[in-house]
């Protein structure tokens, strides 16, 4: 059986070369098909990693995303969520040095104070512009200690130094009984240690820069100590895994964030979720659609390969029925009589695959090449087996009579 197969491989050069070429072309074409699909899948995967989906809390009609009243329940819900990352929170206060009475506040309150949890929350501020003292570093923003960093010009004006302890009387904004009107309320006298300075930000951005920056959690602590309900002014974040955008939106709904309603009245209450996901959704949808289209062709591709395998083997087998009959006549059973032709075909496909793989490995991903081999051997192989099974069912008497 093996001997006959080897003779056949050696002596049917033209037919064998054609079979190898068909297999080679199939591998190349399939590599292009699977390669494109794989590339789209990779792009989708990379899109999820690279395309940042930014979210923020706004008022109901989406017109404001800062200077809001964002409740602690929303803040806690966001902090507990695994689906968001790089959460940025800020609360804005006013302050004056030392202790003074309520009547004196307009004369004494000149300092803009921001409670933030990250450097970037302060417009124009970066790590290079902050000069911490010995005890502190970037971890300052995550602290809940009563510490602060102060604008260099403010420090010069007030004669403060890093390491000094300063007393500030703080005021917070709260909504007045009248609609859309904010009023200032005293938060109390707070002693803060200056742990660093920041370069002057005035003129760097259009926003009014803070004179004093305090860790966000420290501000929250002060509110709690004073037993005043805490609200954040600004909250923004990134979606950790954009591929789970629907899960994320579901979770946001569960923590009380609603969908934007452009027709709603203006307000300062922050309970609406605004997500900049349109680009991501568009790109992801396009990629998903392309992948789906390519995937939907997979059964057709498999049937096509099967058909090619079947037709090629059918035609080759038809031309070799006489040889099959002779093998049977020599005493080989139907399975043994078919095996040399089947084995020969598989060796030729294997050769075509090897050449195709060698070429495609230069361009394609190895995962794609493995996938292609799997499909070729499965679909094409089934086609070959079915074609040669037909040979095995042929009547030897009939074949020998016909060839006479």
């Amino acid at each position, binding site marked *: 059986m093996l*001997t006959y197969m080897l003779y056949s491989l050696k*002596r049917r050069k033209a037919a064998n070369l054609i079979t190898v070429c068909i297999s080679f072309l199939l591998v190349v074409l399939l590599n292009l098909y699977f390669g494109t699909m794989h590339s789209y899948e990779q792009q989708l995967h990379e899109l999820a990693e690279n395309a940042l989906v930014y979210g923020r809390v706004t008022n109901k009609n989406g017109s404001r995303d800062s200077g809001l009243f964002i409740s602690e329940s929303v803040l806690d819900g966001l902090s507990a969520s695994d689906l968001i990352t790089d959460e940025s929170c800020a609360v804005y206060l006013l302050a004056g040095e030392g202790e003074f009475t309520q009547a004196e506040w307009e004369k004494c309150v000149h300092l803009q104070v921001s409670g933030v949890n990250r450097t970037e929350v302060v417009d124009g501020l970066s790590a290079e512009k902050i000069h911490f003292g010995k005890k502190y570093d970037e971890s300052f923003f995550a602290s809940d200690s009563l510490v602060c960093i102060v604008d260099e010009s403010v420090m010069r004006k007030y004669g403060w130094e890093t390491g000094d302890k300063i007393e500030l009387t703080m005021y917070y904004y709260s909504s007045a009984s009248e609609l859309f009107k904010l009023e200032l309320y005293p938060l109390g006298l707070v002693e803060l240690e200056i742990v660093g300075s920041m370069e002057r930000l005035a003129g760097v951005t259009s926003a009014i820069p803070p004179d004093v920056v305090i860790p966000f959690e420290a501000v929250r602590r002060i509110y709690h100590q004073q037993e005043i309900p805490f609200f954040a002014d600004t909250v923004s974040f990134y979606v950790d895994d954009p591929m789970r955008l629907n899960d994320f939106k579901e979770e946001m709904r569960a923590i009380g964030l609603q969908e934007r309603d452009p027709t709603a009245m203006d307000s300062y209450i922050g309970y609406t979720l605004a997500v900049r996901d349109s680009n991501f959704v568009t790109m992801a949808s396009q990629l998903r659609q392309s992948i789906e289209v390519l995937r939907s062709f997979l059964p057709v591709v498999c049937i096509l390969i099967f058909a090619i395998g079947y037709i090629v083997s059918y035609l080759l087998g038809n031309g070799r029925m*006489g*040889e099959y009959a*002779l093998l*049977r*006549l020599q*005493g080989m059973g139907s399975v043994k009589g078919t095996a040399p032709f089947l084995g020969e075909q598989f060796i030729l496909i294997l050769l075509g695959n090897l050449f195709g793989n060698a070429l495609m490995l230069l361009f394609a991903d190895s995962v794609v090449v493995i996938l292609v081999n799997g499909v070729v051997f499965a679909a094409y192989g089934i086609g070959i087996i079915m074609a040669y099974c037909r040979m095995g069912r042929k009547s030897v008497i009939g074949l020998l*009579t016909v060839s006479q």
Partner: protein
Amino acid sequence: MEKMIEAVNVSYIYQTKYQKTKALSGVSCSFERGKVYAVTGKSGSGKSTFLSLLAGLDVPTEGTLNIEGEDMRKINRDTYRLNRASVIYQAFHLFPLLTVLENVMFPMQLQHVPAKQAKARAQEYLKKVDLPESLYKKMPGMISGGEQQRVAIARAIASGGEILLADEPTGNLDSQNEKVIVELLCKLAHEDNYAVIVVTHNEAVAAAADVVYGMSDGVLSVVRE
């Protein structure tokens, strides 16, 4: 002499989806070693079908065909063709991809005879059928019909069996080659003790046989014993 093959009331029906054709009807006869049998008859009389049954390519629809007392239905017919019975045809039926020598070696390779031994024996059989050594490495398509039929006979005897079946072995040959082949077949029966069964409508071939059967419409009758 011991009966090598015995047909008892053998009938055979070709059956397709649409029709049934009775090719053999109640055939009874026997074949012994050392003799040449000729089965004569017109085309379509059923003689080739009978030969195919003797070769174990199918089994009778009715009746039994015994090989040295064993029912053909109960033996492995592939092994039977491999080791005991060989067939030669009018169209020679040599492997087109194998050389003359490789064609004769082939049955021995199937019997797992070592290559060197198979080659030596193949050369011996080719000498026996008077084939010049210069043709051993030629492909079958490159030699004449008479030479091809001699190679087919050499391949038939290479399997080491004792039954040689021939279906119109001289049908494609000229009278000179016909004579050579008939002499060869007779030699194999009389000298090497083969049971040689030849299906033919050639009178010269029938004349050389020891026993002649006639086949008409699937019914076998004795013409000469």
